[in-house]
Protein backbone atom coordinates (compact mmCIF):
# COMPACT_ATOMS: atom_id res chain seq x y z
CA UNK A 1 0.00 0.00 0.00
CA UNK A 2 2.84 2.38 0.87
CA UNK A 3 4.66 1.76 -2.37
CA UNK A 4 1.39 2.11 -4.30
CA UNK A 5 0.72 5.49 -2.67
CA UNK A 6 4.23 6.74 -3.42
CA UNK A 7 4.04 5.56 -7.03
CA UNK A 8 0.57 7.06 -7.51
CA UNK A 9 1.72 10.40 -6.16
CA UNK A 10 4.90 10.27 -8.25
CA UNK A 11 3.22 9.28 -11.50
CA UNK A 12 0.37 11.73 -10.96
CA UNK A 13 2.75 14.60 -10.22
CA UNK A 14 4.87 13.76 -13.26
CA UNK A 15 1.75 13.64 -15.43
CA UNK A 16 0.72 17.10 -14.22
CA UNK A 17 4.18 18.49 -14.95
CA UNK A 18 4.49 16.88 -18.37
CA UNK A 19 0.97 17.73 -19.50
CA UNK A 20 1.57 21.46 -19.05
CA UNK A 21 4.75 21.20 -21.11
CA UNK A 22 3.11 19.14 -23.86
CA UNK A 23 -0.17 21.09 -23.89
CA UNK A 24 1.68 24.28 -24.63
CA UNK A 25 2.42 23.08 -28.15
CA UNK A 26 -1.07 21.73 -28.81
CA UNK A 27 -2.80 24.88 -27.68
CA UNK A 28 -3.07 27.59 -30.28
CA UNK A 29 -2.62 30.46 -27.89
CA UNK A 30 -3.22 34.00 -29.03
CA UNK A 31 -0.51 36.54 -28.25
CA UNK A 32 -2.66 37.90 -25.44
CA UNK A 33 -3.02 34.53 -23.77
CA UNK A 34 0.70 33.91 -24.19
CA UNK A 35 1.31 37.16 -22.38
CA UNK A 36 -0.86 35.91 -19.51
CA UNK A 37 1.21 32.77 -18.88
CA UNK A 38 4.19 34.40 -17.14
CA UNK A 39 1.70 36.53 -15.18
CA UNK A 40 -0.12 33.39 -14.07
CA UNK A 41 3.19 31.87 -12.98
CA UNK A 42 4.07 35.09 -11.11
CA UNK A 43 0.68 35.00 -9.35
CA UNK A 44 1.22 31.37 -8.29
CA UNK A 45 4.77 32.04 -7.07
CA UNK A 46 3.67 35.18 -5.21
CA UNK A 47 0.85 33.18 -3.59
CA UNK A 48 3.31 30.45 -2.58
CA UNK A 49 5.67 33.03 -1.09
CA UNK A 50 2.89 34.84 0.76
CA UNK A 51 1.29 31.72 2.22
CA UNK A 52 4.69 30.23 3.11
CA UNK A 53 5.66 33.50 4.79
CA UNK A 54 2.47 34.09 6.75
CA UNK A 55 0.66 30.82 7.34
CA UNK A 56 1.29 27.69 9.37
CA UNK A 57 -1.32 25.17 8.30
CA UNK A 58 -4.61 27.06 8.28
CA UNK A 59 -3.59 29.68 10.83
CA UNK A 60 -1.25 32.65 10.92
CA UNK A 61 2.25 31.75 12.03
CA UNK A 62 4.13 33.52 14.85
CA UNK A 63 6.01 36.76 14.10
CA UNK A 64 9.48 35.23 13.69
CA UNK A 65 9.08 33.89 10.15
CA UNK A 66 7.20 36.85 8.58
CA UNK A 67 9.75 39.25 10.11
CA UNK A 68 12.64 37.30 8.60
CA UNK A 69 10.92 37.17 5.21
CA UNK A 70 10.23 40.92 5.40
CA UNK A 71 13.92 41.66 6.06
CA UNK A 72 14.83 39.41 3.12
CA UNK A 73 12.25 41.10 0.88
CA UNK A 74 13.54 44.57 1.80
CA UNK A 75 17.09 43.49 0.95
CA UNK A 76 15.86 42.05 -2.34
CA UNK A 77 14.06 45.32 -3.08
CA UNK A 78 17.33 47.17 -2.43
CA UNK A 79 18.89 44.78 -4.96
CA UNK A 80 21.05 42.94 -2.45
CA UNK A 81 22.57 39.67 -3.72
CA UNK A 82 20.29 36.64 -3.61
CA UNK A 83 22.54 34.88 -1.08
CA UNK A 84 22.31 37.86 1.27
CA UNK A 85 18.51 37.84 0.97
CA UNK A 86 18.22 34.16 1.84
CA UNK A 87 20.78 34.29 4.65
CA UNK A 88 19.32 37.45 6.20
CA UNK A 89 15.80 35.99 6.20
CA UNK A 90 16.92 32.72 7.80
CA UNK A 91 19.25 34.38 10.31
CA UNK A 92 16.66 36.95 11.41
CA UNK A 93 14.06 34.24 11.98
CA UNK A 94 16.52 31.96 13.75
CA UNK A 95 17.64 34.80 16.09
CA UNK A 96 14.05 35.80 16.84
CA UNK A 97 13.24 32.18 17.72
CA UNK A 98 16.37 32.02 19.87
CA UNK A 99 15.02 35.09 21.66
CA UNK A 100 11.82 33.16 22.36
CA UNK A 101 9.44 34.47 19.70
CA UNK A 102 7.34 31.76 18.06
Amino acid at each position, binding site marked *: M*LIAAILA*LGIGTYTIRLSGVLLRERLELSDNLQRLLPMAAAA*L*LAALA*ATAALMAGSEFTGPARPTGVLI*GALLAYRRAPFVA*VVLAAATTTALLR*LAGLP
Partner: protein
Amino acid sequence: MSTVKRTLRDVGALGAAMVAVGASFGAIAIAYGLPAWAPTAMSTVVFAGGSQFLAAGLIAAGNPIAAVLAGLLLNARHLPFGLAIANTIGNSWRDRLIGSHIMTDEAVAFALAETDPARRRRIYWLVGTTLFITWNIGTVLGVLLGGATGDPDALGLDAAFPAALIALILPSLRDRATRLVALAGAAIAVALTPLLPAGLPVLCALLGLLVLAAPSRFLHPKPPVPAPAAPAAPAVAAAPVSPDAEETRC
Protein backbone atom coordinates in the same frame (compact mmCIF):
# COMPACT_ATOMS: atom_id res chain seq x y z
CA MET B 1 31.94 36.67 -16.03
CA SER B 2 30.80 37.74 -12.60
CA THR B 3 27.23 37.00 -13.69
CA VAL B 4 28.09 33.33 -14.06
CA LYS B 5 29.84 33.34 -10.69
CA ARG B 6 26.89 35.06 -9.04
CA THR B 7 24.45 32.60 -10.59
CA LEU B 8 26.48 29.64 -9.35
CA ARG B 9 26.66 31.17 -5.88
CA ASP B 10 22.90 31.80 -5.85
CA VAL B 11 22.08 28.28 -6.98
CA GLY B 12 24.65 26.91 -4.52
CA ALA B 13 22.96 28.74 -1.65
CA LEU B 14 19.59 27.34 -2.64
CA GLY B 15 21.13 23.87 -2.99
CA ALA B 16 22.62 24.07 0.51
CA ALA B 17 19.23 25.05 1.94
CA MET B 18 17.70 22.17 -0.02
CA VAL B 19 20.08 19.66 1.59
CA ALA B 20 18.99 20.91 5.02
CA VAL B 21 15.26 20.79 4.26
CA GLY B 22 15.65 17.42 2.51
CA ALA B 23 17.40 16.11 5.61
CA SER B 24 14.54 17.30 7.78
CA PHE B 25 12.10 15.55 5.44
CA GLY B 26 14.05 12.28 5.71
CA ALA B 27 14.28 12.55 9.47
CA ILE B 28 10.60 13.44 9.91
CA ALA B 29 9.48 10.57 7.69
CA ILE B 30 11.54 8.14 9.76
CA ALA B 31 10.15 9.67 12.97
CA TYR B 32 6.63 9.06 11.53
CA GLY B 33 7.56 5.38 11.38
CA LEU B 34 7.99 5.05 7.61
CA PRO B 35 10.59 2.54 6.40
CA ALA B 36 13.95 4.00 5.34
CA TRP B 37 13.34 3.43 1.62
CA ALA B 38 10.05 5.37 1.60
CA PRO B 39 11.31 8.98 1.98
CA THR B 40 14.19 8.23 -0.38
CA ALA B 41 11.81 6.81 -2.98
CA MET B 42 9.49 9.81 -2.58
CA SER B 43 12.30 12.31 -3.11
CA THR B 44 13.32 10.57 -6.33
CA VAL B 45 9.92 9.62 -7.73
CA VAL B 46 7.78 12.54 -6.55
CA PHE B 47 10.40 15.30 -6.15
CA ALA B 48 8.01 17.95 -4.83
CA GLY B 49 8.91 18.99 -1.29
CA GLY B 50 5.63 20.36 0.01
CA SER B 51 3.60 17.41 -1.21
CA GLN B 52 6.14 14.98 0.26
CA PHE B 53 5.84 16.45 3.77
CA LEU B 54 2.05 16.45 3.43
CA ALA B 55 1.87 12.90 2.06
CA ALA B 56 4.29 11.45 4.63
CA GLY B 57 2.12 12.87 7.41
CA LEU B 58 -1.11 11.51 5.93
CA ILE B 59 0.41 8.09 5.21
CA ALA B 60 1.66 7.95 8.80
CA ALA B 61 -1.86 8.84 9.94
CA GLY B 62 -3.06 5.75 8.07
CA ASN B 63 -4.65 7.51 5.13
CA PRO B 64 -2.64 6.79 1.96
CA ILE B 65 -5.48 7.70 -0.41
CA ALA B 66 -5.83 11.15 1.17
CA ALA B 67 -2.04 11.41 0.92
CA VAL B 68 -2.14 10.88 -2.83
CA LEU B 69 -5.11 13.21 -3.42
CA ALA B 70 -3.80 16.01 -1.20
CA GLY B 71 -0.34 15.70 -2.72
CA LEU B 72 -1.70 15.90 -6.26
CA LEU B 73 -3.85 18.90 -5.36
CA LEU B 74 -0.78 20.64 -3.96
CA ASN B 75 1.15 19.85 -7.15
CA ALA B 76 -1.59 20.94 -9.57
CA ARG B 77 0.14 24.32 -9.91
CA HIS B 78 2.82 22.59 -11.99
CA LEU B 79 0.40 22.45 -14.92
CA PRO B 80 0.32 26.24 -15.42
CA PHE B 81 4.04 26.26 -14.62
CA GLY B 82 4.55 23.76 -17.45
CA LEU B 83 2.58 25.97 -19.84
CA ALA B 84 4.66 28.99 -18.88
CA ILE B 85 8.02 27.22 -19.06
CA ALA B 86 7.49 24.77 -21.96
CA ASN B 87 9.48 26.77 -24.49
CA THR B 88 12.31 27.14 -21.98
CA ILE B 89 12.69 23.43 -21.30
CA GLY B 90 13.52 22.57 -24.90
CA ASN B 91 11.83 20.93 -27.86
CA SER B 92 13.32 17.43 -27.98
CA TRP B 93 11.43 14.61 -26.33
CA ARG B 94 14.38 13.87 -24.07
CA ASP B 95 14.41 17.46 -22.81
CA ARG B 96 10.67 17.48 -22.24
CA LEU B 97 10.56 14.13 -20.46
CA ILE B 98 13.48 14.90 -18.14
CA GLY B 99 12.89 18.64 -17.87
CA SER B 100 9.32 18.07 -16.67
CA HIS B 101 10.46 15.92 -13.76
CA ILE B 102 12.91 18.53 -12.44
CA MET B 103 10.25 21.27 -12.53
CA THR B 104 10.04 23.02 -9.16
CA ASP B 105 8.80 26.38 -7.90
CA GLU B 106 12.40 27.52 -7.58
CA ALA B 107 13.49 26.38 -11.06
CA VAL B 108 10.49 28.15 -12.58
CA ALA B 109 11.12 31.29 -10.55
CA PHE B 110 14.83 31.36 -11.45
CA ALA B 111 14.03 30.83 -15.13
CA LEU B 112 11.30 33.48 -15.33
CA ALA B 113 13.63 35.99 -13.64
CA GLU B 114 15.86 35.68 -16.73
CA THR B 115 14.84 37.38 -19.98
CA ASP B 116 17.36 36.03 -22.49
CA PRO B 117 15.96 32.69 -23.81
CA ALA B 118 19.33 30.90 -23.93
CA ARG B 119 20.27 31.98 -20.40
CA ARG B 120 16.74 31.19 -19.23
CA ARG B 121 17.08 27.66 -20.54
CA ARG B 122 20.51 27.18 -18.92
CA ILE B 123 19.37 28.46 -15.53
CA TYR B 124 16.25 26.26 -15.58
CA TRP B 125 18.30 23.13 -16.13
CA LEU B 126 21.02 24.22 -13.70
CA VAL B 127 18.56 24.91 -10.88
CA GLY B 128 16.43 21.86 -11.68
CA THR B 129 19.28 19.35 -11.65
CA THR B 130 21.04 20.99 -8.69
CA LEU B 131 17.91 20.87 -6.57
CA PHE B 132 17.11 17.30 -7.62
CA ILE B 133 20.57 16.17 -6.53
CA THR B 134 20.73 18.21 -3.30
CA TRP B 135 17.15 17.31 -2.30
CA ASN B 136 17.92 13.61 -2.67
CA ILE B 137 21.28 13.86 -0.89
CA GLY B 138 19.53 15.72 1.93
CA THR B 139 16.81 13.09 2.19
CA VAL B 140 19.35 10.26 2.47
CA LEU B 141 21.30 12.22 5.09
CA GLY B 142 18.11 12.77 7.08
CA VAL B 143 17.23 9.07 6.93
CA LEU B 144 20.74 8.12 8.09
CA LEU B 145 21.10 10.76 10.77
CA GLY B 146 17.50 10.71 11.98
CA GLY B 147 16.76 13.17 14.75
CA ALA B 148 20.40 14.32 14.81
CA THR B 149 19.68 16.66 11.87
CA GLY B 150 17.96 19.03 14.28
CA ASP B 151 14.96 21.28 13.81
CA PRO B 152 15.04 23.21 10.49
CA ASP B 153 12.83 25.88 12.05
CA ALA B 154 15.57 26.64 14.58
CA LEU B 155 17.78 27.57 11.61
CA GLY B 156 15.06 29.80 10.18
CA LEU B 157 14.95 27.78 6.96
CA ASP B 158 11.18 28.22 6.76
CA ALA B 159 11.86 31.93 6.16
CA ALA B 160 14.57 31.27 3.57
CA PHE B 161 12.26 29.82 0.92
CA PRO B 162 9.59 32.53 0.80
CA ALA B 163 12.35 35.17 0.85
CA ALA B 164 14.10 33.39 -2.05
CA LEU B 165 10.87 33.27 -4.07
CA ILE B 166 10.23 36.97 -3.43
CA ALA B 167 13.76 37.85 -4.56
CA LEU B 168 13.23 35.84 -7.74
CA ILE B 169 9.84 37.29 -8.70
CA LEU B 170 10.66 40.92 -7.81
CA PRO B 171 12.08 41.77 -11.25
CA SER B 172 8.90 40.61 -13.00
CA LEU B 173 6.83 42.75 -10.59
CA ARG B 174 8.28 45.90 -12.14
CA ASP B 175 5.64 45.43 -14.82
CA ARG B 176 2.54 47.10 -13.42
CA ALA B 177 0.02 44.58 -14.72
CA THR B 178 2.07 41.62 -13.45
CA ARG B 179 2.44 43.31 -10.07
CA LEU B 180 -1.31 43.83 -9.71
CA VAL B 181 -2.04 40.24 -10.76
CA ALA B 182 0.59 38.82 -8.39
CA LEU B 183 -0.45 40.91 -5.40
CA ALA B 184 -4.12 40.12 -5.94
CA GLY B 185 -3.27 36.42 -6.31
CA ALA B 186 -1.18 36.43 -3.12
CA ALA B 187 -3.95 38.18 -1.17
CA ILE B 188 -6.56 35.70 -2.44
CA ALA B 189 -4.36 32.73 -1.49
CA VAL B 190 -3.67 34.02 2.04
CA ALA B 191 -7.33 34.86 2.61
CA LEU B 192 -8.48 31.40 1.47
CA THR B 193 -5.81 29.39 3.32
CA PRO B 194 -7.88 29.06 6.54
CA LEU B 195 -10.89 27.91 4.49
CA LEU B 196 -9.64 25.50 1.82
CA PRO B 197 -7.47 22.36 1.85
CA ALA B 198 -3.75 22.79 1.13
CA GLY B 199 -3.01 23.49 -2.52
CA LEU B 200 -6.33 25.03 -3.51
CA PRO B 201 -5.62 28.53 -2.11
CA VAL B 202 -2.45 28.80 -4.23
CA LEU B 203 -4.37 27.64 -7.32
CA CYS B 204 -7.03 30.25 -6.62
CA ALA B 205 -4.27 32.86 -6.94
CA LEU B 206 -4.89 32.48 -10.69
CA LEU B 207 -8.07 34.47 -10.08
CA GLY B 208 -5.68 37.39 -9.63
CA LEU B 209 -5.64 37.50 -13.45
CA LEU B 210 -9.15 38.95 -13.20
CA VAL B 211 -7.67 42.33 -12.26
CA LEU B 212 -6.72 42.55 -15.93
CA ALA B 213 -10.43 42.70 -16.69
CA ALA B 214 -10.64 45.89 -14.64
CA PRO B 215 -11.14 49.11 -16.63
CA SER B 216 -7.94 49.77 -18.52
CA ARG B 217 -7.87 53.22 -16.90
CA PHE B 218 -7.03 51.37 -13.69
CA LEU B 219 -4.16 49.44 -15.23
CA HIS B 220 -2.86 52.39 -17.22
CA PRO B 221 -3.59 55.51 -15.19
CA LYS B 222 -1.45 57.64 -17.53
CA PRO B 223 -2.44 58.04 -21.16
CA PRO B 224 -1.46 54.74 -22.76
CA VAL B 225 2.12 54.78 -24.02
CA PRO B 226 2.79 52.41 -26.91
CA ALA B 227 4.63 49.78 -24.93
CA PRO B 228 6.93 47.13 -26.47
CA ALA B 229 4.72 44.48 -24.88
CA ALA B 230 1.16 43.83 -26.05
CA PRO B 231 -1.16 46.82 -25.61
CA ALA B 232 -3.78 46.93 -22.87
CA ALA B 233 -6.94 46.34 -24.86
CA PRO B 234 -6.18 42.74 -25.97
CA ALA B 235 -5.38 41.79 -22.36
CA VAL B 236 -8.83 42.93 -21.33
CA ALA B 237 -10.33 40.99 -24.19
CA ALA B 238 -8.38 37.88 -23.26
CA ALA B 239 -9.19 37.97 -19.57
CA PRO B 240 -12.76 36.63 -19.80
CA VAL B 241 -11.33 33.39 -21.20
CA SER B 242 -9.50 32.56 -18.00
CA PRO B 243 -12.23 32.98 -15.35
CA ASP B 244 -14.25 30.06 -16.67
CA ALA B 245 -11.29 27.75 -16.50
CA GLU B 246 -10.40 28.91 -13.03
CA GLU B 247 -13.74 29.07 -11.35
CA THR B 248 -14.21 25.37 -11.87
CA ARG B 249 -11.11 24.78 -9.75
CA CYS B 250 -12.11 26.96 -6.86
